[in-house]
């Protein structure tokens, strides 16, 4: 019985792992194979750029994941520019020029986003400092020394 349960858990874990591992592949929403570029390397580049661009209709999906009309148009634009041989930077600038930094799923480091970017480091530093201080205090004020009564009880016990 127990062995069967364990086997079932193992199978479930494997299925989940494989499903999670494959999900990025399943998430690509290119509706129609004719959208894709014939050159596999160019298509991979277009997908990498597209996954960095926000769909302005759904807002929390990339244009590669969304099936909104505007996302389809923007995918098409990205592929046109990739086929023309433009760099990632040029394509990104083209998009930001029209839609602002909002279209970038990862915000660039600017004066307005500094706090966002340094927050993990800041949290680690502050947490480490708090932990360090409390450990030091705990070590400094250990338990009070045994009283005479306690000491005699201890010797009686041992």
């Amino acid at each position: 019985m127990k062995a069967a349960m364990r086997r079932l858990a193992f199978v479930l874990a494997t299925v989940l792992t494989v499903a999670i591992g494959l999900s990025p592949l399943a998430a690509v929403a290119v509706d129609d194979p004719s959208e894709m570029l014939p050159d596999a390397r160019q298509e991979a580049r277009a997908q990498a750029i597209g996954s960095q661009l926000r769909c302005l209709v759904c807002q929390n999906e990339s244009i590669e994941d969304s099936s909104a009309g505007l996302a389809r148009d923007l995918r098409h634009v990205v592929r046109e520019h990739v086929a023309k041989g433009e760099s990632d930077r040029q394509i990104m600038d083209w998009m930001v020029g029209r839609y602002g930094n909002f279209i970038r799923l990862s915000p660039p480091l600017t004066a307005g986003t500094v706090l966002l970017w340094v927050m993990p480091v800041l949290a680690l530093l502050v947490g480490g400092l708090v932990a360090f201080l409390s450990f030091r205090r705990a070590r400094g004020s250990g338990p009070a020394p045994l009283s005479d009564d306690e000491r005699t009880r201890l010797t009686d016990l041992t």
Partner: protein
Amino acid sequence: MSDKTAQPGLTRRRLLMAAPLVVAGGAGVAFWQMLSGMRQGSFDPHDIKAPALNRPVPDFTLPDQSPGQGFGAADLRTLKVPVLVNFFASWCIPCVAEMPQLNALKDRLPIWGIAYKDKPTDAQGFVHRAGNPYARIASDLSGMTAIDWGVSGVPESFLIGPGGVIRWHSAAALDEATMHDILLPLAASLRT
């Protein structure tokens, strides 16, 4: 009674324990405000602040959309008076809701329409039913001109000042308050 003297760290520990609750509470209040703002219309996540503001209109030429005459960047750049450019589509519900405002506006501010990814016959029927608020109408069948303008969805309106510079932008449907409090005063200031 003797609790405080016996455990001097208690209040501080309580404060530390309360900190996550306070943070979560604050986030909750902020989130609630965002949601209620969406309901009242003071916050619209789709009203994207496009960088088009205070830039000249992008290059484009679009064909006629019956019953209006098409136009391009050159027409907007040679204008001497402000004009409202309005992207619309017959398949867009907020565009239908916006039409009474546009009709009320058309005598005080010329409106030029751009039909966004719409079949010419559908767009024509829509404009006819709405009472045609547009002085000129162009057709952007592919939607590529709209992308150059930074349009993220219809309806979207741009106030074009003299010389073809974009002076104001709204990615939401125009309502009466916006029209009277923002758009018309701004258009009047551009006219002088």
